C-alpha cells in the first residue's frame, strides 16, 4: 500500500460556485488555497475566500481559465502542490493533467490515461461492453462505408443516430428515420466530422426518443477500491443543459438501482479510474438502460448524491489525491431520503431563457431545515457576460420526494435575488406540473411543455391584480425618487446600473 502524501496548497483552476465549493472543502481539511481569476472575476467570491490569488490577464475563457501555459505559470508561482479543476473548462482535458504533473503538482482527479480512455467514445463503449454494461445497440466501431451502415440499419432499426467519433457538444450528429435518408445523412455527418473535428470517423446507434437521463456517481481511491453513491435523475433539461437534478430516481426499483450501480463500479474499475466520476445512462425504460458516457470529473449536481449519502465528494477527491484509502465499503453507504437541486441561472425563462448578465442589487438566500445553497453571489456582485450563466444551486433534502418538492417550493419563495431575472420562476412552474409531480419527466419535458411554462410565467390571479398594481407603482415611484435624488447605486433603472454600459459606450 502506498503511503499518503499530504497536500499543503491547492490551486483551483476554476471560478464561480465550484471554486467556492472546493475552497470550503480544502479549508475544512486544513489545506491552503490559491484562486485564479480573470479580469472580469477580480471581485468574485472565490477570490475573496481563497488564501492566495493569481490574476489571469484577460476576460474570455480562452485567455484565462482555458489557458494552460498561464495556469502552469500560476501553479509554479504560487507553489501549489495540487490542482483541482472543478467542472467544465479544463476538467476533462488529459493534456492539462499532463501539464499539471509536469509542473510538479498533483492533479485532483483521475489519471490522464483513464481520462483519455473514457474520452474516446468508441473505446469507452467497447470497455463497457466487455464488462457487461449495457450499451445502446449500434456499430461497435467506425463505419467502413455506406454498405456497412445499411447492414447496421437492418439490425438496429429506426430511428437511428449517426455520430462523429471525435464529436461532442451536440455537433456532428444526425438522426435518421428512413432508409431513403441514410445515404445523405451519412455523407453530411462525415462532412461535419471532417470540418469540425478533423476526423471523418462516424458510428451509428439506436436513437432513443424521449429518454430519461440517469447517472451513477462513483468514487474510487488510487488503490482500486470503489463504491457507487446511487443514481441521479437529470431528465429536466433544456438543450442538453440540466436544470433540475434529483437523487435517487423514482424511475428505478431498489434492485435496478443496485444493479446499475454495481455495473458502473465494475466499468470504472476496468478503466483504472480514481477519484469521483459519473457514468451517464440513457434510459428507454427501467429495464432498458444504456451506457452513454463517463464524466471524469466532479459534476455540478454532485450535491444531491452527497445529501442522500452523507459523503463529502469534494473532500474525498482531495483525500484520494493524497493517497488515502476509502474508509467506506458499499454496504456502509445508506440511501437516506430524497434530494433535489435546482440550478439558478441568470437567464429569463419567460423570454426563451434569455441570458441576463448584470448587477445583483440584492440577494437573500433561503434557509431553515433541509436547505443547502452553493453560490458565489453576494449583494452588489456583477455577473460577467463571459462565462456560464449558473449563479447558484439550491439543494433541498427531505425524507421523501414529496417532502423535498414542498421544501423546494418553500425555499424558492424565500429566495430573493434582485437586479437580474433568474430561472427560479421556472423551477416553481416545474413543481406545479403534473408530469414532474408524478416523476414521469423525460429529457424532452421542458421543450414539449413550453406552452404550459409560458402561461405559468405570466399568470397573475385576478384577485391579486390590484395588489400587483400597488407593488408595481411603489417600485416605479421608488425608482423615480432614487434616480432624482442621485442615489444611483440603489436604483436598477436600466442603463444606470452596470459597468458594461460604460464599456459599451466607449468601445
Amino acid at each position, binding site marked *: 500500500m502506498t503511503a499518503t502524501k499530504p497536500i499543503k496548497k491547492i490551486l483551483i483552476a476554476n471560478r464561480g460556485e465550484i471554486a467556492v465549493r472546493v475552497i470550503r472543502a480544502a479549508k475544512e481539511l486544513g489545506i491552503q488555497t490559491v484562486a485564479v481569476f480573470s479580469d472580469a472575476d477580480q471581485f468574485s467570491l472565490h477570490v475573496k475566500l481563497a488564501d492566495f490569488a493569481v490574476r489571469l490577464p484577460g476576460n474570455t475563457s480562452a485567455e484565462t481559465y482555458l489557458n494552460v501555459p498561464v495556469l502552469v505559470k500560476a501553479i509554479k508561482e504560487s507553489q501549489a502542490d495540487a490542482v483541482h479543476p472543478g467542472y467544465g473548462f479544463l476538467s476533462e482535458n488529459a493534456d492539462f493533467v499532463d501539464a499539471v504533473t509536469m509542473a510538479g503538482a498533483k492533479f485532483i482527479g483521475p489519471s490522464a490515461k483513464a481520462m483519455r480512455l473514457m474520452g474516446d467514445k468508441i473505446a469507452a463503449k467497447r470497455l463497457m461492453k466487455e464488462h457487461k454494461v449495457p450499451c445502446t445497440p449500434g456499430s461497435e466501431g467506425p463505419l467502413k462505408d455506406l454498405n456497412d451502415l445499411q447492414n447496421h440499419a437492418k439490425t438496429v432499426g429506426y430511428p437511428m443516430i449517426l455520430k462523429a467519433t471525435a464529436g461532442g457538444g451536440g455537433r456532428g450528429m444526425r438522426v435518421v428515420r428512413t432508409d431513403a435518408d441514410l445515404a445523405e445523412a451519412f455523407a453530411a455527418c462525415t462532412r461535419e466530422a471532417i470540418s469540425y473535428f478533423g476526423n471523418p470517423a462516424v458510428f451509428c446507434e439506436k436513437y432513443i426518443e424521449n429518454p430519461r437521463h440517469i447517472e451513477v456517481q462513483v468514487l474510487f481511491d488510487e488503490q482500486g477500491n470503489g463504491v457507487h453513491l446511487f443514481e441521479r435523475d437529470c431528465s429536466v433539461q433544456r438543450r442538453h443543459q440540466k436544470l433540475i437534478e434529483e437523487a435517487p430516481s423514482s424511475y428505478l426499483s431498489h434492485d435496478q438501482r443496485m444493479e446499475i450501480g454495481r455495473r458502473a463500479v465494475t466499468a470504472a474499475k476496468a478503466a483504472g479510474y480514481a477519484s469521483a466520476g459519473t457514468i451517464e445512462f440513457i434510459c428507454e425504460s427501467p429495464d432498458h438502460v444504456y451506457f452513454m458516457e463517463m464524466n471524469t470529473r466532479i459534476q455540478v449536481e454532485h450535491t444531491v448524491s452527497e445529501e442522500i449519502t452523507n459523503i463529502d465528494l469534494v473532500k474525498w477527491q482531495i483525500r484520494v489525491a493524497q493517497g488515502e484509502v476509502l474508509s467506506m465499503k458499499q454496504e456502509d453507504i445508506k440511501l437516506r431520503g430524497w434530494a433535489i437541486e435546482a440550478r439558478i441561472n441568470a437567464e429569463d425563462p419567460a423570454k*426563451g431563457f*434569455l441570458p441576463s448578465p448584470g448587477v445583483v442589487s440584492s440577494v437573500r438566500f433561503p434557509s431553515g431545515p433541509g436547505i443547502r445553497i452553493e453560490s458565489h453571489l453576494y449583494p452588489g456582485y456583477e455577473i460577467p457576460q463571459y462565462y456560464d450563466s449558473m449563479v447558484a444551486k439550491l439543494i433541498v433534502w427531505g425524507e421523501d420526494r414529496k417532502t423535498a418538492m414542498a421544501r423546494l417550493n418553500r425555499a424558492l419563495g424565500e429566495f430573493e435575488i434582485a437586479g437580474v431575472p433568474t430561472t427560479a420562476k421556472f423551477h416553481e412552474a416545474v413543481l406545479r406540473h403534473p408530469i414532474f409531480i408524478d416523476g414521469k419527466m423525460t429529457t424532452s419535458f421542458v421543450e414539449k411543455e413550453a406552452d404550459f411554462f409560458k402561461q405559468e410565467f405570466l399568470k397573475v390571479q385576478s384577485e391579486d391584480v390590484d395588489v400587483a398594481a400597488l407593488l408595481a407603482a411603489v417600485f*416605479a415611484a421608488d425608482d423615480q425618487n432614487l434616480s432624482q435624488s442621485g442615489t444611483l447605486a440603489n436604483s436598477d433603472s436600466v442603463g444606470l446600473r452596470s459597468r458594461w454600459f460604460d464599456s459599451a459606450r466607449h468601445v
Partner: protein
Amino acid sequence: MDWIVNIGERAIKISLPDSMPDNIPFMATMNEKAVEVIWQRATRLLKYRDCTDQRSIWKSVHTRSKNVSRFAGEPDVGVSIEFTPSGRFSTTILEATVSMALHGVHSQNQGGAKKKIKSLRSQITGKVLKVFAKPSGKVEPGDVLLIIEAMKMENRILATSSAVVDAILVSEGSMVAVGAELIIFERNIQIEHRYVQARS
C-alpha cells in the same frame, strides 16, 4: 401622485404620496380603495391593510425580484416583479408598464412584448457578433437583424414587421449593455427577440 399601471388588458389607478416614506405607514388608494401601506425599502417588504375596516389586519407581500426599466425620453416605466401575495404558496410573475397619470395625457403603450417601437434597444448585455441589417435597407418579417452573443449563447433578433432602416448604431464586435440603442428605423416596427441559442 397618481400612477396608471397596465397589467395585461387592465389599467389600474394607484395613488401614492408624492414623497413615499420608508418604514412609516402612509395612505394610498388601490383601484379606488383606500389602503394603509408600509414600505420597507431595505427588505422590499410591502404591507397593506384596508382603511375602511377597523378590524383588518396587515397583509404582507413578499418580493423575490424586481426590475425597473426606464429609458430617457420614454414616459412609461417597465416593471417586472416576482412576488408572493399574502396567503399564497407560490410566486407570481408580473410584467407591467407604469406611467404617471398627468392631466390630459394618456399612456400610449399597452405593455407587453408586442408594442411597436422606432428604435431597437438591446435586452441583453453582450457582444454584437453579426449585423445583417443595412443602412437604408428594407427589412421583412422574419429577417434576422443582428446576433448578440452573451454567456456563451448566440441570440438572434428578428423583425416581425417590415420597415426601412434609418441608422445602425453598433458594429460587429461592439459591446452593448441592456437598453443600448442598436438600430433606428424610419417608422415604428415590431421586433421579436428570438433567442436561438447555439453554445458558442
